[in-house]
């Protein structure tokens, strides 16, 4: 039997004169776990769209699936050959039940006019049994966690005769535990002879179970490597073409001076408890911990979106009550949420308007009308200062890459001239090269005297950027690390230690 399931040669795709893919060769073996890596704009998604038949390559390309040459690519043809893609948005129907979501492909394929609910449930149960998961069949998908939704999408893909499962960034929205469960499923599929292709711009867990990695950069094939011969550093170099240097941020605050923020016994029932926190001018404090440890809830309470029940917040030594974003802004606190798509930006609005949305009240001229001249000069100033690459200030934010979007979110809050800046997972879903540039922006702000709190799942992110790292667990701060006197491993082991429940 042929060992290659998919073999592609001389794949080129030109969009409006730009070579999104330039003469790329690519192959996947039967039952292989393969990873496709590259930064934003490297051509990963273009390649996937060609595999799944959504777009056609330029002539001269040769695609062989399952031993037979693909004459004309169409998504139907790809599905017939056993290629299934799970997009990052999962393409599920939030309002329909789990069973119906899983059975939808088969229902369409059957061509029947009536729906057989019993059959739907059977199809769904069978798919779930294949990967040993069980999710209640009658629950609406929107009520499930992200991880379960992902599993539903995988189950749906498995209802057909799938030979290659392509997953676009499947782990970004999952917790560590959920990722492990997902990887187990992938290994399971492998044993059944189903190949998986992960698309990623992050060096992560999927790498551990992948056999080979194909790296793309600027539409060109850099190479295909065995995972065993790569490490994070090397892969990062292959993806970006440069070695990024992490310079840990060391800072010793002047403990005599007044801290920008001090909380005393800040508590909120079912959220967090007895939080004593100090942030000094020029300091970057990291907060990490498992998902659901109360990190985000604490940040939201400092920003007035989730006011605390009891305890004291002091800003520059003065006690304040923050129960609305307006008050938080008055205290010169800024907050960048984790979910920038839904909470941080107005995606359909242009870059410029997003940038000044936080300070629009300061740009009023005569008669409290917007002073457009001042607004435009303000916009230009920030685009320049943050090195945002955009075709025009009038293009909608949704057309930008993740890194540029995040710069805009950060930019619009810097524009408010905050003294305390809270960032919740500031680089989630952003590729390696854009990531370090955002870290540099944050460090520069601290050097200018801002107090900064970074909340992050990634231990390396807090380790390399913060001088102090606080670990939260079940709503409490249970330990403080000095970043110059600890290692990634030490923190990781501590966070996951089951002993933590006893420390409380």
């Amino acid at each position, binding site marked *: 039997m042929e060992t290659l399931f998919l073999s592609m040669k001389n794949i080129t795709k030109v969009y409006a004169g730009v070579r999104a893919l330039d003469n790329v060769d690519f192959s996947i073996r039967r039952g292989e776990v393969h990873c496709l890596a590259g930064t934003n704009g490297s051509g990963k998604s273009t390649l996937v769209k060609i595999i799944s038949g959504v777009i056609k390559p330029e002539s001269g390309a040769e695609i062989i699936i399952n031993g037979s040459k693909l004459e004309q690519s169409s998504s139907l043809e790809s599905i017939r050959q056993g290629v299934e893609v799970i997009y990052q*948005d999962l393409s599920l129907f*939030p309002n329909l039940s789990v069973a119906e979501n899983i059975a939808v492909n088969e*229902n*369409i394929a059957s061509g029947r006019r009536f*729906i057989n609910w019993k059959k739907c449930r059977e199809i769904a149960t069978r798919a779930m049994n294949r990967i040993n998961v069980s999710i209640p069949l009658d629950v609406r998908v929107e009520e499930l966690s992200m991880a379960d939704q992902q599993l539903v999408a995988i189950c749906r893909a498995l209802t057909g005769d799938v030979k290659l499962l392509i997953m676009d960034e499947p782990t970004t929205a999952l917790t560590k535990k959920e990722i492990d469960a997902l990887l187990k499923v992938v290994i399971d599929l492998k044993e059944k002879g189903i190949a998986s292709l992960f698309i990623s711009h992050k060096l992560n867990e999927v790498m551990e179970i992948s056999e080979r990695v194909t790296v793309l950069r600027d539409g060109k094939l850099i190479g295909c490597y065995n995972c065993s011969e790569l490490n994070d550093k090397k892969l990062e170099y292959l993806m970006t073409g440069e070695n990024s240097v992490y310079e840990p941020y060391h800072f010793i605050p002047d403990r005599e001076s007044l801290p920008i923020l001090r909380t005393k016994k800040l508590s909120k029932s079912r959220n967090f408890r007895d939080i004593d926190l100090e942030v000094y001018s020029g300091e970057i404090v990291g907060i990490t911990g498992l998902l659901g440890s*109360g990190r985000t809830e604490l940040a939201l309470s400092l920003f007035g979106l989730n006011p605390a029940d009891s305890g004291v917040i002091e800003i520059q030594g003065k006690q304040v009550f923050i129960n609305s974003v307006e008050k938080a802004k008055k205290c010169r606190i800024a907050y960048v949420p984790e979910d920038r798509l839904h909470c941080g930006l107005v995606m359909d609005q242009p870059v410029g308007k997003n940038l000044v949305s936080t300070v629009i009240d300061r740009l009023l001229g005569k008669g409290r009308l917007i002073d457009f001249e001042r607004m435009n000069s303000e916009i230009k100033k920030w685009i320049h200062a943050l090195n945002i690459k955009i075709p025009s200030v009038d293009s909608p934010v949704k057309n930008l890459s993740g890194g540029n979007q995040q710069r805009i979110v950060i930019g619009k809050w810097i524009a408010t001239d905050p003294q305390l800046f809270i960032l919740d997972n500031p680089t989630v879903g952003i590729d390696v090269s854009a990531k370090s540039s955002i870290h540099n922006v944050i460090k520069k702000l601290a050097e200018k005297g801002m107090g900064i709190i970074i909340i992050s799942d990634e231990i390396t992110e807090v380790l390399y950027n913060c001088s102090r790292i606080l670990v939260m667990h079940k*709503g409490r701060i249970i330990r403080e690390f000095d970043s110059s006197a600890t290692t990634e491993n030490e923190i990781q082991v501590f966070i996951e230690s089951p002993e933590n429940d006893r420390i*409380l």
Partner: protein
Amino acid sequence: MKRFLKTHEFCVFIVIIILSAAITLINPNFFTLENGLDLFKSYSFMGVLAIGILFVLISGGIDISFAATATIAEYVMAVVCLRFGGNIISALLIASGIGIALGAFNGLLISKFRIPPIIATIATMNLYYGLLIVVTGGKWIYALPDWFRYFADIRIFTLVSKTNTPYGLSVVTLFWIVITAAAYFILRFTMLGREIYALGGDINSAERVGFPVKRLQVFVYSFMGFIAGIAGVIQALLVQTVAPNSIVGKELDVIAAVVLGGASLSGGIGTVGGTILGVVLIAIVKNGMTLVKISAVWSDVVIGVVILISVGFSSWQQKKEQSKSNIDIDGIEVES
């Protein structure tokens, strides 16, 4: 069962029970079979339209033009019947045919030219209604054919009240029942119905899994037009006169009833059962006010309040569910 108790439909049901009990206490005439059957007759117009707009809302769209469509269908049907004769079947065919044509035009504007449904149907509402006025000069039609009048009085079964007046299940109500049953069947058991739900749930996903999104949209608006045509005939049967301006303005009442019944304006959610309850609630409020002798001028105010309370209550509960944080720090509190 527990899930059922939490549904919006159940909330509406409870409100209906409470209201009915309150009205009956004041005026026992409310809770009689005669009044009930009468309500089911006079609200069959609204009930039928509600089924049409339910489909549109589930698909993620909206239609403002259906009252205008119903008026045109009603008017043309009446003119044809007067001039060329016919029977109830031909009347229904003409009206529903016109409805489908006008609805399909809406669907085409929305699916092919990607005009937002609210804009497209506001435009066609004005267009359809305006054309009708231009062509007819706003003239009323009073004398409908005899067979038309006789048909309206047909009862499926007849009972006699204490005051010796006959009453029963009107044939008009039967229209409502048949359409409701058909709608339930389509939405629940056909691929077509499930595709409409899927479309309203996530249009991009629907496209990706291979549902014929554009065809579905055209179908949904055509179906709305078909229903509007039938509703036009029902209106003529009930009132026995045809006025170009008698229905226009009802569209928001109907949409409100469907939303009261739990349908979501953002698509994907809504049931036939809820829609019936929504219409019944509105019917009870209006009828109950008459029976407890509250002046009719208050009726709009009360309807507004009922909508605010019931829809507001649901969204408030949803908000409460969402903001519930689920961090387990309770274990800590025991120890500390």
